[in-house]
């Protein structure tokens, strides 16, 4: 008993000592905090970003603690934090949720800081990303990066079945023909020419819709033309590819990326944020990227302006409205987004830059793998911003499920089902926007 009492007394003393010792030692520089909490969701980027943040720490004396929280929990945690007034100091914003956070004044208003900051000129960044993080004329986040989409193929499978490699001159018809040839020849090995699920939207079928001249969400974010003739023509092309692609049950249960990396799908489309996964894959020597195929609308045999589209999206660096030291938080954001570090971010292979024209180095960040298809998309393709409205997830999820495009994906042999799904999609999006 006595020993126990002594032990707990010692424990209490230890705790008290810990409390006094643990209290922040006053920061070296002009900032009132000694540490900033930064939340991100992509572990692939942590190392590179920490490297840049450490360089900032050297000048500011403020330590930067980068926490990685996986995508789903990231938003649950951030929302709970926002409701309770306990958000991290600096964190990523995304097009799915930005509007909600901005409208509720949960993000730090950056206008005055940007105006006083020589390193940041918003006209140097991708307009779509700048606009995304602007609400009511107030800028709430700075563009961190941008991503584009490309076609990924497995050279070994193309060699095995004697099909020519995809090139940057391929149309979607060429993809269909190659997929048909590989799926037929590979039937006994369980190999498919192509794999795409209804959930591969930004990195998949959205792009075809824009190639054919329709829009998933119109420029004013108030409507859609997915059910138009152009939209239906685009999804009819998609249907013909689906007929020779892996069945929906397979892509839903196994996942397109797993199928590809297991050598069971010859082609998929993917975003630049996924490069690392494939670069580090066991058979990465077999993998190669080509630009997204195009739609030869005028039939002249070459890709003209407006015939090849790639979705792009960009994250934003935002700060909490009640961060302990807004000056320090903005200083870090500005440091991440200035030209030098936007270049460095690309060089380190973290992501392509949110600033226009400084991403060439990204193409060299993966020795042995040519990823220039992503950077070339900027000059040789038209970019459209990832479709979003205020409550994107509501219609985005509905489009992927029964009543949306899941029906034709399940039965791609019937053109009427695809056309009906386009009409349903039009309805789903319009209803969702009406309720926003």
């Amino acid at each position, binding site marked *: 008993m006595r020993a126990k009492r002594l032990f707990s007394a010692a424990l209490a003393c230890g705790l008290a000592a810990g409390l006094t010792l643990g209290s922040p030692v006053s920061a070296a520089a002009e900032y009132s905090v000694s540490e900033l909490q930064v939340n991100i969701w992509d572990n692939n980027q942590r190392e590179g970003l920490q490297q840049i943040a450490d360089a900032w720490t050297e000048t500011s004396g403020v330590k930067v603690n980068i926490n990685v929280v996986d995508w789903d929990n990231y938003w649950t945690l951030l929302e709970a934090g926002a*409701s309770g007034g306990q958000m991290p100091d600096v964190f990523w914003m995304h097009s799915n949720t930005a509007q909600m956070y901005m409208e509720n004044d949960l993000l730090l208003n950056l206008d005055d800081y940007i105006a006083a900051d020589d390193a940041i000129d918003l006209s140097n960044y991708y307009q779509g990303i700048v606009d995304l993080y602007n609400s009511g004329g107030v800028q709430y986040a700075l563009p961190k990066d941008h991503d584009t989409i490309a076609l990924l193929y497995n050279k070994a499978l193309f060699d095995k079945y004697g099909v020519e490699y995809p090139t940057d001159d391929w149309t979607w018809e060429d993809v269909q023909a190659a997929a048909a040839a590989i799926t037929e020849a590979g039937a006994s090995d369980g190999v498919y020419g192509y794999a795409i699920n209804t959930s591969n939207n930004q990195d998949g079928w959205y792009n075809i819709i824009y190639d054919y001249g329709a829009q998933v969400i119109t420029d004013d974010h108030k409507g859609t033309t997915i059910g138009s003739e152009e939209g239906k023509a685009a999804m009819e092309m998609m249907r013909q590819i689906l007929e020779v692609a892996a069945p929906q049950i397979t892509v*839903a*249960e*196994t996942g397109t990326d797993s199928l590809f990396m297991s050598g069971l799908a010859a082609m998929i489309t993917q975003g630049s944020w996924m490069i690392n996964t494939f670069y580090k894959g066991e058979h990465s020597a077999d993998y190669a990227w080509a630009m997204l195929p195009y739609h030869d609308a005028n039939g002249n045999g070459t890709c003209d302006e407006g015939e090849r589209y790639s979705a792009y999206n960009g994250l934003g660096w935002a700060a909490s409205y009640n961060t302990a030291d807004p000056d320090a938080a903005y200083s870090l954001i500005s440091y991440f987004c200035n030209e030098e570090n936007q270049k460095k971010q690309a060089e380190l292979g973290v992501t392509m830059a949110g600033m226009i024209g400084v991403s060439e180095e990204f193409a060299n960040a993966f020795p042995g793998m040519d990823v220039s298809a992503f950077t070339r998309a900027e000059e040789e393709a038209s970019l459209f911003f990832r479709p979003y409205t205020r409550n994107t997830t509501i219609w985005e*999820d509905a489009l992927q499920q029964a009543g949306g495009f*899941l029906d034709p994906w399940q039965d791609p042999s019937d053109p009427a089902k695809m056309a009906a799904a386009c009409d349903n999609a039009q309805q789903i999006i319009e209803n969702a926007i009406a309720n926003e």
Partner: protein
Amino acid sequence: MTPTQKSEAKWGLLFVAPTIIGLLVLNLYPIANTIYQSFFKTGDFGKGNIFIGLANYQKVLSSQETWQALWNTVKYALIEVPFGVVIALLLAVLLNKKIGGRSVYRTIFFLPMVCAPAAVAMVWKWLYNTQFGLLNNVLHTKVAWISDPKIAWISIGIIGVWSIIGYNMVLFIGGLQEIPGDYYEAADIDGASGVRQFFSITVPLLSPTTFFIVQTRIIGALTIFDLMFMVMDKTNVALPKVQSIVYLFYQYAFTNGNKGYGATLVVILLLFIMLLTWILQRAEKKIVYHN
């Protein structure tokens, strides 16, 4: 009350205070708040709620989706509870006998309980995979275990049974050890067979334990969420025929950010569970044997 009793009561209260406070803060307050929210069109981040009366209830109750999800949940419970209880009881009786390696078997059967539910779900997901799963490879079949709307609910139920057997079994073993050995000795002398002993001694004397397990498992099964969430992809065609009420709640409250609608769904589930519990409590006197 005498001074001693008073002082005892005071200390007693003090000692249970942590539990009472915990229940109030962590259980009662959220329940009240959930019921409150179900009458609102909730704003983002808990701000700007608009009172809309019973509109959420109207929408939830008139939605085909709600009733399908409730039926899916009941179907899941109809697999998990009976099979989970019967198999666990048989195992408990076997493992209560003095057989070699008894504790090894007990450990093996209890293992699923120690595993993280998410890990369990991931492993089963791969076992069930139509094209590359072990199950279809061993059986030389091409069954879409988790993508065929007709059988996906059974496949999910099987995972539930597998996960819970060990836990139920341990409770049964505890109950079995409270049955005095004299009864079995007397039955032996009277020449009763093992099966007869099981049904005439074990089953009735174990009924309080059985009742406890059945009741808690019904509630557990009706609040199932993680299995569907982990095993089935969002684009799985069988999902509408398998998703539980809590899954639907998660979808509305957290993915779509419609907390009021989500709250209404769980209030309805709460009422449903309360009704079932009430019926079970009434039935307890008739089906449970107290000696």
